[in-house]
């Protein structure tokens, strides 16, 4: 417990010091990471804690985003509330939207629940472009951050601190909420809603409330995004926003408290650094998701917590060594895989097709070298990397398993 508090304190300290540590573009990315982290935490309050998998959380993120933009533009641009308090508008509208949608969605469970949330979100997404007054049509709505409380909110740093304060506050509230009767009952919903009913609880009302709380925090995340980019467009209601939050949360681990936040932040960060390097980020996101689900089903943070909380019997040294081998194997396999994907992406692009005529297949530039599609080396190198990496991974896993066995 003490170690956990210590880790969190360090993380908060680093987050507070960040504006003096990184460049402006990176700080911009950090704002987006914080927003993605909060969104994933909001989603996971519903999915991880209460066991309700929503495929339509873009709706509540979007509702919060649009509400915030309208609030910023209210009274001829003076704003409904001072800028630092605008996320409250996102919270309020998210809560309201969540109460209404949740009332219908939580009448069913499991797949049917997921389908209703998906349908409601798609309904909103389909409707949005037609409601120009509310959602601004194709162009969206833009606005402007007004100075307040002595801050201009003109610099990235000020926006970063505003976002950080709200995200930390919300994550703190979600933590406390988990300790209340409502939070404990949410666990009961996940584990066995049928039993709760026979213990005298109103399961539908309970589910609706948990749904609404989740939507409320998603609304705050949406509002923070509007504050950050000073605009909202109906693309925030798209299905990929809903799916990203699902993928990010599961990659981090929905059942450990900060797992989703770390998943959301990490995936946003990867998206940011690879945005200029690759056109197929979505493919990588998908591959990462599948790999995590196959080999680390508790999510990245979930597995880490498991390792440190007694699952690992071996001494730190040998475990670390194996970790090193695994990492090396993983890096080699990943390099081979990335090479193949990037090469194929360029090879199959229409741009390349236009330059290739008849027997003439010009070489493709990748990582500073020219690679000819006809040369065996081009194909053997990534294949060898992939094979060697996988072999290394397998060998390290076998060794670790044998040692665990010997100690057990």
């Amino acid at each position: 417990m003490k170690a956990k508090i210590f880790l969190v304190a360090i993380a908060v300290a680093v987050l507070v010091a960040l504006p003096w540590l990184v460049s402006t573009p990176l700080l911009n990315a950090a704002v987006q990471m914080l927003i993605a982290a909060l969104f994933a935490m909001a989603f996971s309050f519903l999915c991880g804690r209460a066991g309700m998998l929503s495929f339509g959380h873009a709706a509540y993120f979007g509702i919060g985003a649009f509400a915030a933009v309208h609030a910023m533009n209210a009274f001829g641009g003076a704003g409904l509330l001072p800028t630092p308090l605008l996320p409250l508008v996102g919270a309020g509208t998210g809560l309201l939207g969540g109460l209404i949608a949740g009332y219908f969605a939580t009448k069913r469970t499991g797949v049917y629940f997921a389908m209703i949330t998906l349908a409601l979100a798609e309904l909103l997404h389909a409707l949005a472009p037609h409601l120009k007054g509310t959602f601004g049509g194709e162009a969206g709505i833009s606005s402007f951050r007004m100075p307040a409380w002595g801050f201009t909110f003109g610099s990235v740093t000020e926006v970063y601190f505003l976002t950080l304060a709200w995200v930390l506050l919300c994550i703190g509230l979600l933590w406390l909420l988990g300790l209340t009767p409502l939070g404990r009952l949410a666990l009961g919903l996940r584990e066995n809603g049928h039993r709760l009913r026979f213990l005298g609880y109103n399961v539908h009302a309970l589910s609706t409330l948990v749904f609404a709380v989740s939507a409320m925090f998603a609304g705050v995340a949406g509002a923070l995004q509007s504050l950050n980019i000073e605009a909202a467009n109906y693309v925030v209601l798209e299905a990929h926003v809903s799916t990203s939050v699902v993928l990010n949360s599961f990659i981090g681990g929905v059942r450990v408290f900060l797992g989703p936040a770390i998943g959301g932040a990490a995936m946003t960060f990867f998206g940011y650094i690879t945005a200029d390097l690759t056109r197929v980020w979505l493919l990588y996101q998908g591959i990462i998701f599948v790999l995590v689900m196959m080999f680390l089903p508790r999510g990245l943070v979930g597995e880490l917590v498991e390792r440190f909380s007694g699952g690992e019997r071996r001494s730190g040294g040998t475990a670390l060594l194996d970790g090193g081998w695994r990492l090396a194997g993983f890096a080699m396999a990943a390099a081979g895989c990335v090479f193949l994907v990037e090469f194929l992406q360029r090879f199959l692009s229409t741009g390349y097709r236009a330059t290739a005529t008849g027997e003439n297949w010009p070489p493709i530039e990748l990582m500073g070298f020219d690679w000819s599609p006809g040369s065996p080396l081009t194909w053997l190198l990534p294949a060898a990397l992939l094979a060697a990496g996988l072999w290394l991974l397998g060998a390290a896993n076998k060794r670790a398993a044998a040692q665990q066995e010997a100690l057990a």
Partner: protein
Amino acid sequence: MNDTVLKFENVHKSFGPAHIIRDVDLDVHRGERHAVIGPNGAGKSTLFHLCSGQFAPSSGRILLDGEQISGLRPAEVNRRGLARSFQITNIFPGITVHENLRLAVMRKHGLQFSFWRFAGRLSAVNAEVEDLLDRLRLTARAGTLANQLSYSEQRSLEIGMTLASDPKLILLDEPMAGMSQEETDYTADLIREITRGRTLLIVEHDMSVVFALADRISVLVYGEIIATGTPEEIRANAQVKEAYLGEEVAA
């Protein structure tokens, strides 16, 4: 004085053309341990589902302390003072034993939607949970995940959850199903001990348990109650012998 807690009046239940419960009249008296026995498929579990709110009867009424409870939803039935366990273990597997009992206790304290208090600081609730743990002999297992318990411990936990709301009437649906002789004896003891002074309606297949535990027994065959009486009366009843007990108990 025969004070009736639960009363079935002419209760009938059919699923399409299948008549599962036929015109059942049954009184459960306050403070008694009442067992329902009958061959497989006699409708014992359906009888429980009817009075706990899982199903509504096709006709007839079920009264708890004079108030109609048939047709109400499970949560409403529970709040009027009827708690039940299930034939197949029905607990919260992925959370601790303590947490399982706490969820069961909280409802009685009106804690459902409260998000402004910490569950860990509800001293009345936690004291009751500790007390239950003690009576269930599960104190040492309080921090264990419910799905890590042994089968008989899980059954004990479920009985404890039924007790948690301090109900007027407890329904136990085959609490000893699938248990070894040793576990059965243990659980029978536990039930006798923790239901002292309460009203109990129990379905059970193990005849030795039923005859040792129950004050009165009702025999359900093909959806009809063919006899109700003390264990001695049931043992002596020719109709029961013929329909169900056969040599098993007569011997």
